[in-house]
C-alpha cells in the first residue's frame, strides 16, 4: 500500500505514468544472443560495486611504506604504499581478497562479453544503417574497457604488472619524434615515476569509468530510440519488433541474468586464484619474473610484439624502432578498421538502405569471411603471447615456437577466412539449416563465385503484399480499450500487440504500422488463453531433480571410494 501511495504521489507531481507505461511495454527480442551485451553491462555493475569497496582500502601512492601484516615473507620489507595496501587488502582485510579477485575476474569477463557482443553485432550486420553511430559508441567502449583493464592491472605495483607497464611505456616511446615527450607528459618524468600510480588511479576510478557510464547511457538510449533489430521470421518485418515486453517477462529474465553474472563472478573470485601479487613481489626495475604475460585482452598486442621481427628503419633521419609497428601501428589499424567497418561495407556494397532485420552470417559470405579472418589473426596473436608457456610445456626451443607462430599468424587467418566464405556460400545456396546438414555437393557448388542475382535478392526491399493468405490482424475490445494481434495460421504464429489503444482506430493504425497490407478482422473478445503450463513445468522440475540427485549420488560415491583407497583421512 505504501508503494501504491508513493507511486501515486510521484505520478501527481512528475506525471510519470505515461512514460512508465511506455517503458514497461517496450519489446525486447527473445533470441538469446541479444543478452550478450547484458552480460557485459552486469559485469560493469559488478566492477563498480567491487571497485568502490577496493578504493576504501587501496592507497594510490608510490611513497615508501614498510609492510607489516600476515604475509611473513614480506614482513619488514619497504615497498610502495600501493603495493603494501594491496597486500593488506589481500591478507588482512576481511573479504578483501574475495572482492579483489572478483573485481579482476569481472574485468576479464567484461571485456570478453563486450567482444562476444561485438562479434554478434558484426556477423549479423546489426551495425548497418541506422545503427552506425551506436557501433562507434560500442567500439569506443571496447577501447575504454581495454584502457581501464590495463590501468587497473598496473596499479598494485607488483613485479608482473610493472613489467607490463614498462613494455607499454616502451611502445609509446617508440613513436618517432613525439614518443619520449608523450611518455614524460603522461608519467610526469622518466619511468618509473612517482606520479605514475596516482595518475593511473585517477584514470582508472574516475576518468574512464565516467566516460564508460556516459557511453553506456548513450548506447542504451540509442537502442530505445532506434528499437532493437531482430532476426527474420514469420510475423517479423522491417516495421516491428517481436519479443517479450520489458515488464514482466523480460525484466525477470534480465534480472536472472544479473544473478547469474554475479554468481559466476563471485564463485570465481572465491574459488580460483587470480593475480597473486604476494608471489610476484613488489615492482623493482632491476627484477623480472617469467613466464610473464598480460591479461588476455591486451595479450594480442604482447603477442604481436613477440612475433614481429626486430626490424628498425630510418625515416627522414629518425629511427623507427621495431615495437612501433606491432605496438602502435597494429593497435591503431585495428581500431581504425573497427570504426570504419560500417562505412567501408556501405561503400563496397552500395547498400544505403536502413535495415531493421538482421542477416544470418551466411547471408553475407564476404563479411563472414573477413570477420573469421580477423578473429583467427588475433587469436593466434593471443596464443603467441603465451609462447613461453607453450615452450615450457612442450619442451621445445622458444624460437621454434615463435617461428611456427609467425607462419601461422599469416597463413591460418587466410585459411579459416576462405573456409568461412565457402561454408557460408554452401549454406546459403543449399537447403541445409545447420553446418552438419551440408553435403559434399553443396560444398562443391559453393566454390563457384556468387551469381549476380544472388547478390541482389538478399537486399531486396520488403514490399507489402496486397494479399497474404493465412495472415490476419484481429482486433477486439478489452474493457474501455482496444487490443490487436497478428495471426499467421500456416506458420502457427500469433503475436499480441504490446500496448492497448484507447480507440479502435488507434489500434488499427498501430497494427497497420507493424504489418502493412495485412487484412483486419474484428473478433468479439480476447482469444482463449493457451492451456495452463503447470504440467509441463512439473515435468521439467522432476527431470531436473532426478538429474541433480543422480549427480550428487555419483559425487558421494566417488568421494567414498577415494577415502576408501587412501584409508582414513589424516588428522
Amino acid at each position: 500500500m505504501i508503494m501504491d501511495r508513493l507511486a501515486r504521489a510521484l505520478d501527481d507531481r512528475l506525471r510519470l505514468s505515461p512514460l512508465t507505461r511506455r517503458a514497461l511495454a517496450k519489446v525486447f527480442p527473445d533470441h538469446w544472443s541479444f543478452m550478450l551485451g547484458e552480460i557485459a553491462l552486469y559485469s560493469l555493475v559488478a566492477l563498480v560495486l567491487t571497485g568502490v569497496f577496493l578504493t576504501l582500502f587501496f592507497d594510490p601512492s608510490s611513497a615508501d611504506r614498510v609492510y607489516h601484516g600476515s604475509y611473513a615473507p614480506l614482513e619488514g620489507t619497504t615497498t610502495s604504499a600501493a603495493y603494501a595496501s594491496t597486500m593488506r587488502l589481500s591478507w588482512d582485510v576481511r573479504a578483501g581478497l574475495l572482492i579483489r579477485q572478483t573485481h579482476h575476474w569481472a574485468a576479464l569477463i567484461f571485456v570478453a562479453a563486450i567482444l562476444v557482443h561485438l562479434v554478434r553485432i558484426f556477423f549479423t550486420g546489426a551495425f548497418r544503417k541506422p545503427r552506425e553511430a551506436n557501433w562507434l559508441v560500442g567500439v569506443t567502449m571496447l577501447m575504454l574497457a581495454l584502457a581501464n583493464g590495463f590501468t587497473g592491472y598496473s596499479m598494485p605495483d607488483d613485479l608482473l604488472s610493472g613489467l607490463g607497464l614498462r613494455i607499454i611505456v616502451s611502445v609509446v616511446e617508440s613513436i618517432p619524434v613525439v614518443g619520449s615527450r608523450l611518455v614524460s607528459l603522461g608519467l610526469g618524468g622518466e619511468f618509473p615515476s612517482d606520479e605514475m600510480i596516482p595518475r593511473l588511479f585517477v584514470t582508472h576510478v574516475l576518468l574512464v569509468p565516467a566516460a564508460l557510464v556516459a557511453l553506456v547511457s548513450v548506447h542504451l538510449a540509442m537502442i530505445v530510440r532506434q528499437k532493437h533489430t531482430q532476426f527474420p521470421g514469420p510475423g517479423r518485418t522491417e516495421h516491428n519488433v517481436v519479443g517479450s515486453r520489458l515488464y514482466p517477462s523480460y525484466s525477470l529474465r534480465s534480472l536472472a541474468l544479473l544473478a547469474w553474472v554475479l554468481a559466476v563472478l563471485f564463485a570465481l573470485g572465491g574459488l580460483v586464484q587470480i593475480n597473486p601479487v604476494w608471489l610476484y613481489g613488489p615492482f623493482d626495475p632491476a627484477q623480472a619474473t617469467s613466464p610473464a604475460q598480460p591479461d588476455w585482452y591486451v595479450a594480442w598486442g604482447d603477442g604481436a610484439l613477440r612475433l614481429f621481427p626486430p626490424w628498425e628503419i630510418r625515416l627522414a633521419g629518425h629511427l623507427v624502432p621495431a615495437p612501433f609497428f606491432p605496438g602502435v601501428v597494429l593497435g591503431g589499424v585495428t581500431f581504425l578498421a573497427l570504426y570504419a567497418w560500417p562505412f567501408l561495407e556501405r561503400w563496397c556494397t552500395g547498400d544505403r538502405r536502413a535495415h531493421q532485420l538482421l542477416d544470418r552470417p551466411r547471408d553475407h559470405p564476404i563479411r563472414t569471411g573477413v570477420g573469421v579472418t580477423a578473429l583467427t589473426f588475433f587469436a593466434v596473436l593471443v596464443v603467441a603471447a603465451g609462447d613461453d608457456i607453450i615452450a615450457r610445456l612442450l619442451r621445445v626451443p622458444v624460437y621454434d615456437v615463435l617461428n611456427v607462430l609467425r607462419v601461422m599468424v599469416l597463413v591460418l587467418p587466410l585459411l579459416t577466412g576462405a573456409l568461412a566464405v565457402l561454408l557460408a556460400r554452401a549454406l546459403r545456396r543449399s537447403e541445409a539449416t545447420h553446418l552438419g546438414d551440408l553435403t559434399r555437393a553443396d560444398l562443391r557448388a559453393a566454390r563457384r563465385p556468387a551469381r549476380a542475382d544472388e547478390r541482389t535478392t538478399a537486399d531486396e526491399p520488403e514490399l507489402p503484399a496486397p494479399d497474404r493468405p493465412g495472415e490476419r490482424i484481429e482486433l477486439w475490445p478489452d474493457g474501455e480499450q482496444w487490443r490487436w494481434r497478428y495471426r499467421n495460421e500456416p506458420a502457427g504464429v500469433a503475436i499480441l500487440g504490446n500496448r492497448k489503444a484507447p480507440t479502435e482506430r488507434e489500434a488499427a493504425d498501430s497494427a497497420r504500422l507493424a504489418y502493412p497490407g495485412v487484412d483486419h478482422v474484428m473478433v468479439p473478445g480476447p482469444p482463449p488463453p493457451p492451456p495452463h503450463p503447470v504440467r509441463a513445468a512439473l515435468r521439467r522440475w522432476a527431470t531436473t531433480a532426478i538429474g541433480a540427485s543422480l549427480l550428487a549420488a555419483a559425487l558421494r560415491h566417488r568421494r567414498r571410494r577415494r577415502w576408501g583407497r587412501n584409508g582414513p583421512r589424516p588428522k
Partner: protein
Amino acid sequence: MAVWTYRWRPPARAATAGAVLALAAGPAVLAAPAAVAPAPTSVAPAPTGGQDQGENLYRQNCASCHGDQGQGGPRGPSLIGVGAASVDFQVGTGRMPIPHEMQQPRRGEPAFSADEIAALVEHVTSFGGGGPAIPQVEPGSLPTGRELFAANCAPCHGGTGAGTELTNGWIAPPLYEATPVQVAEAIRVGPGLMPVFPSQVFTDQQVNDLTAYVQSLRSERLDRGGNPLGRLGPLAEGLVAWAVALGLLVAAARWLGRGAGE
C-alpha cells in the same frame, strides 16, 4: 661446469616445430610428447655390503657413460671434482641414471634408496678433485630469502616458482618438489644451465634464507585465493575466464532465451 649436459641433438628443428602445430591441432596429440619421457629405469639389484655397495652401484649404473674412474667418455662428462652435492642432487632427484641420452634429464622418483645414494656419493667423491659438499640446511629468514629469490631466481624459475623456458628447449624446472637440501645443492652446484652460486656469492646463511623461502613457495597457504591454475599467470586466467565463466554465462543466456519460447 655443467655435469650432465649430454648433448642430445634434436633430429630436426622442424620436428619440434611440428609438435607445436600438433598442440594447436588438439589435445589428443598432447600424448605425443610423452614418448620422450624417460622409460622406467631398470636398476640392477645392489648387493649389500658397505664399501663395495657404492662401487657396485657405480659400475652397474654409471660407469658405462662416465667411465670406470669417473674420467668421462664420449657419452658422459667427467665426474672428477663435481663434488658430493652434485652427485647427491642428480641421483637424489631421480635425474640420474638416465635411460637414454636426452638434453635435459627430468625429475623423477629416485632409483636408489637413501643408503645407496650415500654409498654412491661416497664412491664418486673418492675419485678426488674436491667440489662442493652436501650443504647442511638450517632455518633461515623468509623476508631475506624472498628478496634474494626475486633478484636471483625469479627471472628463470618465475616469481611463483612455476619454472619457465630457457633457450634452445631447456627449461628452468618448477621448484615445488625440491627438498631443502636439494635446493641448497642446486644453488651451490648449478646443474644444467643454472649458474653456480659459490660461497663468495651467497653465504651459507643466505642459502638457508633462500631455501626457507623456496620451501614456503611449496605451501598451499600461498594459494589462499583458490585454485592457483598452475601459477602460470594471466593467460591461464584468461582461458578460465573464457572457457568456464563466459561459457557458463552464454549458456545461461541461451537457457533464459529458450525459456521465452525461442
